[in-house]
């Protein structure tokens, strides 16, 4: 039986969603309390930064972007990586993936929340945020790549909110969703996912004064790593969902996602090698940042532990993924996902943003090590993202599986 849809029934739907978001087992409460506590620590640290200025960070006029922008960049990749569920589900008609694709869309939403959080805390004047709102402020579009990023990130957020929201509401009403209300948006979201990470790469790639970033390979590398971290996170998430017993699904989605990773981990290592060859064989000023990153320079080597840990983890994830055991034993696959996720986080975060600034444009070597305040804010934003994701998945699955309906 299908219920009739009225504005009132939508409000009732929202009310039930809110109730659902705040009720659960003690495990749910414990998890949410821990996340809220971490988020509050972050909020407090950010307030401290707002009051005293960004001198509470270790950023400087030499290294003017650091941990926040590193996490932002990685977060955009995570959001874009979720599309690796959407493509098989809708383009290749993979029915198993279709059953769980909603999880990818909810992950995209949460990841974008994380990205926007990192942008806000990186701003010196968040009180002037409205200056960057198109139509109200002075939006320097299309010249500034940052305005493109505002458009694509918020557009991606809206697209996924619409798709997930529409599909869930129809499920709640017990109706078959109408294709024209979501399919065009799904296909648009596929292109959009590629665009968010391309534009984010272009932010750095387009700067002639920063040889480390000024490489045409940056955007392809960003996409390759996005299609490592996204599937890695989703595989872990799917296992958690399966373990919670709230959704039953076959092995198809995880098999597909790990196959994608088997390709992208190698692609990423190959591109990394290509970049290293170009920088180190050519030598000269263009290799200075790469040398500093991997080997240290003039007795300074703050990034060396980051990048080598990343390399080890990335290689380990590749090895694990190609071992036959990772196809049969979940624990091996999960270990591979953990390595891949962390490896990309380090390589694409601190290992990509900071060496863009070291050496500086006047070839000064000023190092950067994030302060406790920066780590607190960072942890807080990730906790906020996990809060959003937990609620979204909890509510989403309750509606998806028909446990909550009109």
């Amino acid at each position, binding site marked *: 039986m299908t219920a009739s849809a009225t504005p009132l029934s939508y409000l009732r739907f929202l009310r039930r969603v809110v109730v659902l978001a705040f009720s659960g087992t003690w495990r749910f409460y414990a998890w949410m309390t821990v996340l809220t506590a971490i988020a509050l620590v972050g909020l407090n640290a950010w307030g401290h930064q707002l009051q005293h200025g960004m001198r509470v960070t270790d*950023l400087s006029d030499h290294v003017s972007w650091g941990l926040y922008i590193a996490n932002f960049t990685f977060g955009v990749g995570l959001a874009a990586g979720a599309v690796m569920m959407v493509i098989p589900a809708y383009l290749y008609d993979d029915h198993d993936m279709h059953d769980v694709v909603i999880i990818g869309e909810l992950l995209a939403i949460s990841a974008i929340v994380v990205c926007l959080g990192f942008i806000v805390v990186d701003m010196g004047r968040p009180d002037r945020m409205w200056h960057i709102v198109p139509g109200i402020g002075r939006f320097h579009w299309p010249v500034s790549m940052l305005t493109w990023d505002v458009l694509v990130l918020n557009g991606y957020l809206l697209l996924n909110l619409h798709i997930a929201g529409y599909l869930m509401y129809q499920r709640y009403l017990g109706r078959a969703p109408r294709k024209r209300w979501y399919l065009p948006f799904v296909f648009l979201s596929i292109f959009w996912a590629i665009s968010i990470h391309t534009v984010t790469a272009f932010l750095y790639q387009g700067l002639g004064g920063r040889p480390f970033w000024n490489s045409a390979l940056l955007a392809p590398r960003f996409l390759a790593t996005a299609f490592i971290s996204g599937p890695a996170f989703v595989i872990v998430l799917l296992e958690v969902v399966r373990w919670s017993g709230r959704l039953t699904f076959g092995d198809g989605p995880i098999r597909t996602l790990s196959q994608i990773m088997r390709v992208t981990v190698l692609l990423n290592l190959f591109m990394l090698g290509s970049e290293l060859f170009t920088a180190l064989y050519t030598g000269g000023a263009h290799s200075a940042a790469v040398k500093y990153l991997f080997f240290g320079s003039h007795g300074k080597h703050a990034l060396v532990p980051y990048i080598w840990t990343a390399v080890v983890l990335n290689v380990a994830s590749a090895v694990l993924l190609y071992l036959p055991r990772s196809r049969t034993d979940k624990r091996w696959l999960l270990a591979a996902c953990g390595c891949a996720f962390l490896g990309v986080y380090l390589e694409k975060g601190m290992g990509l943003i900071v060496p863009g600034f070291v050496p500086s444009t*006047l070839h000064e070597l000023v190092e950067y090590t994030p302060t406790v305040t920066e780590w607190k804010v960072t942890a807080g934003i990730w906790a906020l993202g996990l809060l959003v994701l937990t609620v979204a998945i909890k509510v989403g699955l309750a509606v998806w599986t028909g446990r909550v309906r009109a």
Partner: protein
Amino acid sequence: MSAPTRRVALKVVGATLGAGAFAYAGQPVAQWAADLSLDEVLRKHYKELSPEELAQILRRLEAETKETYGVEVRIEDTPAQEGVSFGYALNLRACIGCRKCAEACHQENNHDRRTNNSYIRVLEMEQGSFDMERGTVDYDHAVPAPGKFYMPVQCHQCDDAPCVKVCPVEATWKEKDGIVVVDYDWCIGCRYCEAACPYHARRFNWQRPEIPADEINPDQGYLSNRIRPQGVVEKCTFCLHRTRRGLLPACLEACPTGARVFGNMLDPDSEIRWVLEHKRVYVLKEELGTRPRFFYFFDE
């Protein structure tokens, strides 16, 4: 106590603790928000201000400076003059690396004293090489040192400025006389310009500038040396509050060797024109296509 009552009691205690945690954690943000002035938050972009609105803002800023720093200052907004296009040249053979220019900039432009900020960095370079990799700004010995030459670097006021291009909110732009300025009251502090600049010309206010009252230069320009707010980007403006009124930049006046030449490039009789037409001129990072208005030259 029966189970339901205990559950209720637990919930009440939990909710109270939770609310307390939220209030405590949010306090610094709330305090920061309370200190913001609505006038300032809702202010229009510099280019959209009427002369009356601008005048009002200048008076408000003067009052705020008095309140915060305890000094009477005069903040004016001198527009670009017709028929003027500024250029700056620096004689690499004359410069001895004394850093008097950087110091003069520090005082003239009301820089933060704690960080000893200046818009000029002087590189000590090795004779026979233009590789900045082999240069240093941290030299600490008598100058000029044998086997070295000195290259001060400041904003090049590029005609195709990467910093202007990347700014997402048009808080920085090029004026008619060629000077790239920042509206400190419009900048959102994203520091994309700082990442984009190839000359390390931009500075961020990591905190509210600290300057003792008796050291504040009271002769201030809205787009140049007025004391900057916390959390925004600033840069060299060729001292436009001086140069637009016919004075020379502070760095030039401080130079003991006469290495610096500044003037209107549209004036055929100006010294800058003569230098550009007769000397061997070197443009730093010319290959980046930023088209600077700052030139290095070699005298015989």
